[in-house]
């Protein structure tokens, strides 16, 4: 391990503790719906950012137990209700972790849809089996009792918080940080001076693992730093 923590000892205290939080959501039905791909595109242009968040970041949290095959609601609808496999694949390939703003994410989705609709005008107006209903996530951030200021305490918190807390810090965090990173890596880097550990955690692939697997991978990486 090239991180320099070993000399300082794994139990040294950070200046700022890590506050494990979690977020809880209530779903508001926006009233907007799409019956075909053209309507989806129009609605995606004008829907509130909380809708884009709901159908991408939030839905990933809701389906955290699926190892592969689920990415976001737009891709799922393109496949299950429109039977547009190529579009579904392209939409599913949009990795939310590559975005630090909802508007950038919206533009990426719009771009894929615009391109597809332009090249497949018949598919654009074909009525879907089921409408796409736009929803809005209303969030409440909830603190937990885990506020570690040491690496062992941090590892303990990782093991014990809810899976929603892992999602909150590991995936949603980049929208708050506006960085291609996450709360765990930032704290390990800034407070514990563990750049390699921080980097290794940030490289975990969330689309080929359940969120529980992601938690276990993070714990293993932190445990290695403790050795």
């Amino acid at each position, binding site marked *: 391990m090239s991180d320099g923590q070993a000399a300082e000892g794994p139990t040294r205290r950070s200046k700022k503790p890590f506050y494990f939080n979690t977020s809880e959501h209530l779903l508001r039905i926006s009233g907007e719906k799409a019956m075909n791909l053209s309507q989806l595109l129009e609605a995606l242009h004008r829907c509130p950012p909380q809708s884009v*968040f709901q159908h991408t970041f939030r839905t990933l949290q809701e389906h955290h137990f699926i190892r592969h095959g689920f990415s976001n609601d737009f891709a*799922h609808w393109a496949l299950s209700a429109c039977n547009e496999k190529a579009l579904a694949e392209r939409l599913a390939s949009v990795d939310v972790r590559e975005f630090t703003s909802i508007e950038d994410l919206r533009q990426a989705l719009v771009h894929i849809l615009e391109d597809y609709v332009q090249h497949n005008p018949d598919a654009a107006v074909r009525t879907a089996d089921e409408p796409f209903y736009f929803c809005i996530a*209303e969030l409440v951030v909830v603190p937990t009792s885990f506020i570690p200021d040491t690496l062992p305490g941090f590892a303990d918190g990782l093991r014990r918080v809810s899976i929603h807390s892992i999602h909150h810090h590991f995936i949603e965090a980049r929208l708050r940080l506006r960085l291609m990173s996450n709360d765990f890596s930032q704290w390990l880097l800034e407070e514990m001076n563990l750049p390699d550990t921080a980097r290794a955690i940030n490289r975990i692939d969330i689309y080929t693992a359940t969120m529980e697997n992601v938690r276990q991978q993070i714990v293993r990486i932190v445990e290695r730093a403790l050795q």
Partner: protein
Amino acid sequence: MKPSQLTTENNPLVLGQTTAPVSTPVVGERRRFVRDFRTPPAPPPPPHLDDYQSIIGQGNLDALRFLARDLKGKTIKMVNSTAVGGGVAEMLNRLVPMLTELEVTTHWDVITGGNDFFEVTKAFHNALQGSDYQLTSHVRDIFLMYNEQNMQRMQFGEDLVVIHDPQPAAMVRARKGSSSHWVWRCHIDLSHPNPQVWDFLRTYIEQYDAAIFSSQSFTRSLRIPQYLFYPCIDPLSEKNRELDDSTVQAVCDDFGIDRSRPLVTQVSRFDRAKDPVGVIQAYKLAKKYVDCQLLMAGGGASDDPEGAAVLQEVKAAAGDDPDIFILDLPSWCALEINALQRASTLVVQKSIKEGFGLTVTEALWKGKPTIAAAVGGIPHQIIHKLTGVLVHSIEGCAYQIRYLLTHPEFAQRLGENGREHVKENFLMTTNVKRWLLQFRIVNGRQTASVP
């Protein structure tokens, strides 16, 4: 006694089968203390929040307590039209004590009315789900008069008043001059309502602070915010709690089910909307290629003439196949339903029309690979090939029975994902969380926008 001679008289588990006995080809060792299912058992005391810790984890319980903290001392009133029977009463029976345990004291009042009122509200119920109906001023007067009577009878000093379904919807007039928040919880599908009835009700619905629906597809355009609460099951109820294998075995023995062979089950009342004959046809198609037994367990034939007719159709379709088990059970046979679902290799719900489909939720919670029709609220629960499989025809259902019985690893993965999906979205504890969030929102507690 030969199993095929089992009837209501000699087996309290077989009800409503006065002419044709149930098909039970094998009977193993019988339970020593078979309950008498002709009278409902006393309901068990409600569980406490801590009892859910092993199911949802301490983190989720802590989140509930945090969300309730700001609401401590606040009060809620729930109003619906029935204290027993039906999904709403069942849900409130669990929800009310859980909210009260979180120190958000919750009262539950049930409206009263004469036969004329309940005839009107039953007609409204059907009309709101698409039936033809002529709304007259006389009908409107009956509806409003009983709503007014109930308004006078009840007091509304609570901070949040939740009115369930259309029957008491006009009681919102009682909010005038009060600081309470009012929310309408609609449990029925309003996607294709009779326009006269809906226009009449809408004037009252839009006086609420918010409306809550069970599915996005059940909603109407309204000038008030609308929220989505999925229906839910209680993992500690008699129908869903964990059972040890000896209990499952004993119930199977009672009905003569051979647990060494695959069992395909549909649990639902005997109703054409559940397509029970279609299930038998799918089973027969599948059985050309795979060995299995079929269990059709449900109720509704004893107290419903149409149900009795459907039961006869089901028996006729089953013919003399010794591997088909048809059980007409009363609604309080929850433990038996639980055991039969757990004994099943696959669960089917091949409905033609469906509300949310809580029998699907129950099967998924038990980790059962589930094949279901893509109707009503079922697609919320079954994500095709991820948490179960969706089918659109008898042939499709038959194929999926064959496929899942011959690909047990895939079937097992579906079952595991299905259980997690329920844990995340369709458990009573998630519903408690939704109510706390809803209360915070109407109370003006700020929610965050996108992080």
